[in-house]
């Protein structure tokens, strides 16, 4: 059995600051001679995803499972490989200035949009400018960008208002796509995108909201990373329906619930378990205690952290599909520190003592938003907190109000299940003063100092050490109460393999490969 990895050579972790794209180029140059890529020809990847992809307008792309579709149509400047590293994409190399305020990207030559127009630095600039100017989910990723300039046809210079450690990660995602300037402002591109990516969307076979059919481009520079000539992405929201579709052979890859695994064993499927793809975190957002005074006391926050029997929650509620944790960072990533896991053992008695010490012997009451995804965990959260004297009042929040409910500052605590991301982005979202999950905008001088360091550090290895410090700081001060990592079970028909291991949680068809015939 052979496994074809999309990127042939692991790239050095130590010096990705100005990674030469030559290695990659040389591998792709072999395309014509290898014939290996075509050994999978005729094979179709039929992938079940949960949600309907949004608009394909480059400025409106949303990350998540729908990335499978748009990431196949568009190139991104950088690529997050299956090991979670940032490697060259449309930009064959990049470079920060020492003050981390200017980023220069060199665009790969010879790339073409599916319309035939060549990909140039002007197209990159046009897309970046459009994303910056258009309200949308990608805008926040480019918030630090002051200007984008071109230098010749193949060089883009991005000037920043302030150093941003998460910018490179962002450029490997939705904010880093390249759209065809000729078409991207037209209405049609939202449904019929023109990109330079490995696939084109087959409009004839695609049924919006139901099935998206992707045809591979023969002239793609990195064709080898995409062994499937055709990819069908089917939207199946119901989990049992997805299981049925797998069993009936209507899709050949998809993720299933842990409880469904039993029904799939012994029937020609390969199961790949990714231990951590999302974190279940009880956000203690009001850590200044402005709305709920007790939360301002670190003893209370620590007590809350001790209220959860994390091992048991993972074993029982997640059916073992996950991992107990007190951290929010990807356990396969740079910032994670296994030693921190011992910080808060399950100890309701100690928790009660801490609460009493803080002056809350009789506990307190806290409203929390009941959301679609919190439902399975509500009984346990309620019970766990009740056991140490804290009463939770769940308030039903309709799905469409999830984000506005958080932002409203109505809820000093809330439970989130966010997909894992890279350390800079996790730090930005969860802890930075303007972080989207830091809805009360709380901060701390010690944190600010670390955050500044991280942003100005252009060497990834050095930056990783800083993120570890940030992690340790937030865990020790109980800024949140993380409970578990939730895993994903990828199920593929024999012959297809899920190549990821959780290092990268980016949803791309590069994570699917063909096993030996």
């Amino acid at each position, binding site marked *: 059995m052979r496994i074809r990895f999309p990127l042939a050579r692991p790239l050095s972790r130590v010096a990705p600051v100005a990674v030469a794209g030559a290695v990659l180029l040389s591998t792709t140059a072999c395309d014509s001679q290898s014939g290996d890529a075509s050994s999978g020809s005729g094979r179709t990847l039929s992938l079940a995803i949960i949600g309907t992809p949004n608009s394909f307008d480059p400025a409106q792309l949303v990350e998540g499972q729908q990335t499978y579709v748009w990431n196949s149509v568009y190139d991104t400047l950088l690529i997050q490989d299956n090991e979670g590293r940032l490697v060259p994409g449309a930009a064959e190399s990049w470079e920060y200035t020492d003050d981390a305020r200017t980023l220069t990207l060199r665009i790969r030559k010879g790339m073409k949009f599916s319309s035939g127009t060549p990909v140039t630095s002007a197209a990159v600039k046009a897309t970046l400018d459009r994303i910056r100017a258009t309200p949308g989910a990608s805008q926040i990723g480019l918030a630090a960008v002051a200007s984008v300039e071109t230098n010749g046809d193949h060089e883009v210079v991005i000037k920043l208002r302030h150093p941003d450690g998460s910018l490179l990660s962002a450029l490997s995602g939705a904010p880093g796509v390249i759209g065809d300037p000729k078409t991207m402002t037209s209405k049609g591109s939202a449904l019929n995108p023109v990109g330079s990516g490995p696939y084109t969307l087959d409009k004839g076979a695609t049924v919006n909201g139901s099935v998206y059919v992707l045809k591979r481009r023969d002239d793609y520079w990195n064709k080898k990373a995409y062994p499937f000539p055709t990819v069908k992405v089917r939207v199946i929201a119901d989990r049992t329906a997805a299981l049925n579709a797998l069993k009936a052979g209507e899709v050949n890859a998809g993720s299933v619930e842990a409880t*469904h695994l039993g029904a799939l064993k012994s029937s020609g499927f390969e199961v790949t378990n990714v231990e951590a793809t999302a974190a279940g975190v009880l956000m203690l957002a009001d850590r200044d205690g402005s709305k709920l005074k007790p939360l301002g006391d670190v003893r209370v926050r620590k007590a809350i952290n001790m209220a959860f*029997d994390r091992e*048991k929650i993972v074993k*029982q509620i997640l059916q073992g599909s996950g991992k107990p944790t007190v951290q929010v960072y990807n356990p396969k990533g740079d910032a994670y520190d296994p030693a921190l896991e011992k910080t808060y053992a399950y100890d309701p008695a100690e928790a009660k003592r801490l609460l009493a010490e803080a002056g809350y012997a009789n506990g307190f009451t806290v409203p929390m938003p*009941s959301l*679609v995804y919190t*439902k399975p965990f509500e*009984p346990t959260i*309620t019970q766990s907190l009740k056991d140490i004297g804290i009463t939770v009042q769940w308030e039903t929040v309709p799905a469409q109000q999830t984000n506005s409910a958080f932002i409203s500052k109505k809820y000093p605590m809330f439970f989130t299940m966010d997909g894992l991301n890279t350390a800079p982005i996790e730090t930005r979202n969860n802890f930075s003063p303007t972080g989207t999950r830091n809805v009360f905008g709380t901060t701390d001088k010690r944190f600010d100092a670390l955050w500044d360091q991280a942003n100005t550090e252009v060497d990834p290895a050095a930056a990783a050490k800083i993120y570890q410090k940030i992690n340790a700081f937030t865990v020790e001060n109980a800024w949140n109460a993380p409970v578990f990592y939730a895993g994903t079970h990828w199920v593929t028909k024999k012959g297809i393999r899920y190549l990821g291991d959780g290092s990268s949680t980016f949803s791309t068809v590069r994570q699917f490969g063909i096993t030996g015939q």
Partner: protein
Amino acid sequence: MSSSVKAPEPNTLETPADTGRKSALHTLMRDPQAVISAGILIVIVLLGLLAPLLTEHGPNHSSLDAVNAAPGTEGYLLGGDKSGRDIFARLLNSVNTSVVSALIGASIALAIGVTFGLVGGYFGRRVRGLTEWVFSLIMTFPGLLLLIVLLPVTDGDYRATMMIFGVLLSPGIYRLVRNLVVGVSKELYVDAARVSGLPDRRILSRHVLSVVRGPIVIAAAFLSGSSIAVQSGLAFLGIGSNEVASFGAMIADGFTNLYEEPLQFVWPSLFLGVMTASLVLLGNALRDALEGGRPKASDVVGARSRPAPAAGAANTAATSTASGLLVVEDLTIAYPAPSGELTEVVSGVNLSLEAGETLGLVGESGSGKTQTAFATLGVLPPEATITRGSIRLDGRELLGLAETELRKVRGTSIAYVPQEPMSNLDPSFTVGSQLVEGVRAATTLSRSEARERVLALLQRVGIPDPRRTFDSYPHQISGGMAQRVLIAGAVASRPLLLIADEPTTALDVTVQAEILDLLRDLQKDLNMAVLLVTHNFGVVADSCDRVAVMRQGEIVETGSTEELFSRPSHSYTRMLLDSILDDGAVRTDGPADAVASDSSSAVPDTEAS
């Protein structure tokens, strides 16, 4: 109140089942379907109410040790769900949620729908236009969408959601009630009540509401069912609070766990199914009880004579000397009483009728004369039983004949003119098509020949514009016209025997005489024998050769009309005759014999008892 006895009894006639509404509950108690479904519902509701006593854990108590616990685990009768909650406790609390949903949804829908249905159906165009419009507005509102869009308003509280759902359900009830009321308010008796000056409110509550009551009751059961279903459906979709136990939420949880822990799916599904099914069955049973009679489905063909060889043989032997076109001997008809025993309504009746003769069968209502007539026609209601006796037509025994044989006899040899002309015409077909169908069933005539014959007959029975009447629907012609049409239908196949059951009672006084004249003329023309069932001695005197007087299911006296009028031998006959003379009204129409001219054609008060 001498006119009140005229109320027709179209369905139940003189059966003992017609004991009135007070027995609705009684009937219900005897209906196993009602008892069982109500019993199940009561048990389920009780289980819900007693939940705190029956379960060890609260519905939201969660223990990580109980996650997916097996049924029978200590303290977890049915095991634990995937969040570690007691399935049994959640089931019982889901019952409460369902009951509350059903009560809220159904009562709001009914309150709104029935009120406006009555108003919209009964009052004139303008009111109806308005209600119609408002309910169309409600009906066109995409319900589920509204419930979802209004989530911020309802805060996901299922009770608030059910209130809105109740409003959304109301157009269905409104339409149902309105349609029924529109139908009813065109009925004669409502017109009569209106003409007699009864206030609208009284008419609505007495005449109209009683008609729509049955359908409303069954609809209420369905409404409760759909409220429960929608509440569950929304919970299944994850809308609403997690803390409110609900079958829907339980089913959704069980559904994801279906392949591993199928019982988690089965229990709530089963409870939900049993609850909704019981509601529907109870609704059906309730309606049956309220609408009176015994509305069990039964073979259309209806009653069969129960062979009673010993008695039948003996009686036949004893009286078989009688001869004539129609010979009825020892005819005994019984109905099952609510207790299940058979009660005789006709006992040992003997009658005979020669060709071309007219026999009046006289008696008060409930005396069994109509039952005797129906037995002769072979159209007794399904629950009737002929326990003994014999009915021969031209020497041929009719009792025990197969339906197909009887049908041939009915079409060609015996015909029937009913009491109430309107209800005896199918409202959905034109007069002509109904008559043609009858003619074609009884003869071998082609469609066009049958049509010609019907048109000729309509002319013959005195209808001024036969073609127009032919193409009219029953509601477009008058009662007198309708009776002429029915007579035309009866004589179309030139029968040997015509059975006319109170053919004039439902008609205006002026029309009565014309109809009687018509019957007499036709009898002469066609040389038919006529069995004239009536309670009116005036009619008897007018038309009959001989008279049989019936009382409480038995013939008390038979004789020629003249004889009977001049020398009534039975005290009952005398009493009947006296009551006519007391009335003293004098006939004003047509020729008649001496006695008849004294008698009243108005309804005598003989039946008030």
